[in-house]
């Protein structure tokens, strides 16, 4: 024993570097490396990612230069100003409010709400699924009854009712309210994976060696399903854009005077707008479609990256 240790210590420095390099090459690459490789192999996904990031940065920075209250002021002189004119690149609506500026601020609001909603509801759904799937038995049974109940609730109608109750609400309260109703899908997915995962040997080994349940759940099981979490979060981001804009479209989303992509699309509810003044609603519609397609495409690439049999990149 002593002898072998001594011979080990006699390794030259070059050998050591060479050996650790070799070990590094043979090790499974990190998740981010795999994802990056997949994006490099799929140019469309890379393009979607760049488009999405650039767009989000653009609307956030762009909206900093826009005075919202001034923008939302009615100006009858600009009633349905035509697009592609010097002051109104995308025209103006019935109140003479410029569409382009509304689009930028509205996109920022919608995207940030969707992001917030995704973060909160996914975090909650992940914890819920982890706990429900890990403990099983009575815990799982009762937690899944709550889930069943949440699934039959006509959530959209109840959200609309609650929005009418809250006297003063803003983007943050709206996000929190929506999060109450949109964690179920994530929960179900995570739970089913955790059910399978908690039967594995490493979990039993950890249990026998006395790790606490919390440690097993969050430090051992969660990293092992991280790829699933990444994919699911991306896809729910696309869905959540639809949730907020849909609510605003029906007129129960963000309060009046706060533009959202949904309120812009709601311009299409007017028969004149939808036929003659197409610029009041069409840009926002196209933007949502592009955004959602890009996010889903990124989600699809991520899903391929996490499943080694479907990767397009070659190792």
């Amino acid at each position, binding site marked *: 024993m002593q002898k072998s240790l001594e011979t080990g210590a006699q390794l030259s420095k070059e050998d050591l570097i060479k050996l650790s390099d070799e070990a590094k090459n043979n090790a499974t690459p990190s998740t981010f490396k795999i994802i990056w490789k997949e994006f490099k192999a799929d140019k469309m996904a890379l393009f979607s990612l760049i488009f999405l990031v650039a767009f989000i940065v653009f609307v956030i920075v762009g909206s900093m230069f826009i005075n919202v209250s001034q923008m939302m002021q009615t100006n009858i002189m600009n009633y349905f100003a035509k697009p592609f004119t010097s002051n109104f690149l995308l025209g103006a609506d019935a109140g003479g409010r410029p569409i382009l500026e509304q689009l930028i601020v509205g996109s920022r609001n919608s995207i940030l709400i969707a992001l917030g909603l995704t973060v909160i509801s996914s975090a909650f759904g992940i914890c819920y699924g982890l706990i429900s799937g890990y403990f099983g038995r009575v815990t799982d049974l009762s937690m899944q009854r709550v889930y069943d109940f949440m699934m039959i609730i006509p959530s959209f109608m*109840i959200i609309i*009712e609650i929005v*009418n109750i809250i006297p003063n609400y803003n983007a943050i309260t709206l996000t929190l309210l929506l999060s109450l109703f949109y964690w179920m899908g994530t929960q179900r997915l995570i739970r089913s994976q955790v059910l399978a995962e908690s039967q594995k040997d490493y979990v039993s080994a950890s249990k026998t060696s006395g790790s606490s349940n919390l440690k097993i759940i969050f430090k051992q099981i969660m990293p092992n399903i991280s790829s699933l979490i990444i994919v699911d979060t991306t896809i729910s981001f696309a869905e959540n854009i*639809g949730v907020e804009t*849909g609510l605003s479209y029906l007129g129960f989303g963000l309060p009046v005077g706060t533009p959202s992509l949904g309120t812009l699309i709601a311009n299409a509810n007017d028969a004149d707008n939808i036929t003659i003044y197409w610029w009041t609603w069409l840009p926002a519609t196209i933007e949502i479609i592009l955004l959602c397609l890009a996010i889903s495409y990124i989600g699809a690439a991520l899903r391929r990256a996490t499943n080694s049999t479907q990767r397009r990149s070659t190792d």
Partner: protein
Amino acid sequence: MWKTILRRILIMIPELIILSVIVFVISKQLPGDPFTGSINPKASMSQIHHLMRINGLYDPWYQQYWNWVVSLFHGNLGNSYQYQEPVTRLIAERAVNTFWLSLLTMVMTYAIGLPMGLYAGRHEGKLQDALVRIYTYVTMSIPFFVVLVIGCWIFGYDLNLFPTNGSVSPSASGFLPVVLSKIYHMILPATLGALFATSGITQYLRSGVIDARKSNYVKTAQAKGVPMKDIYKHHIMRNAFLPIAAFAGYSIVGVLGGSLFTEQIFSYPGMGLLFLNAVNFRDYTVMTALVLLYGFLSLLGTLISDIALSVVDPRIRVE
């Protein structure tokens, strides 16, 4: 088998009670009183208070809830404040429209989804499959209402192929013209709705067909020399279709959820539009009844699907 069904129905009862309490309490919290605007504008505050007392609006909430539940079992949901009509009658009128629209949407969903899923599964990895996959990818990512708006614009206004509001043309008279006009009004919303509801069915059926094709019983049938056409007819389709048929209940839930948008965009006088109007007019009784009805229908839909799935697939039965 019966245990599963019984258990499933027993679970339903507390769910329904909790749902009704939540819905009721929320409805009571809504601001504004329901008489404003519907009564003589010269009425004094004391007269309004008197009206509210008569209608039981000052009772504690549990008292009001109890009254509401009792009258619910008598088939009486109160009067709509806005229309001055019994809620049950008001909803019944609209429910017919929503029922037919939902039914047509479901029929279209299966009519589009089944062949597509089968076709994609049959030609796995080929061009046809890729096209179907692009289709499901697009329909799954874009928000539902956005496409309704675009479809309404293109086919309703621009090409002027379909009507864009109402459920029946006012000039239609006589049984057949009215029915035809109703169907004509429903085609566009139902098709657009169905295009979106198909993605789940298509994907599920596609993977079902692919799995079945690789299974041993298909290989056995092939080895016996059964022609591929018959294998599809008797082995693959049978196994892949059954779970899809059982999904019908879940589809109802989805279609109902979408009815808010469909009816708003096409000004289709169904329950969804009734709800949106009721919210704007603070018509408590209508709102409460509708949310409860939607919840109940969702419950029923999932119940049907859960039971149907446990009949079809013995693995998920509870012992």
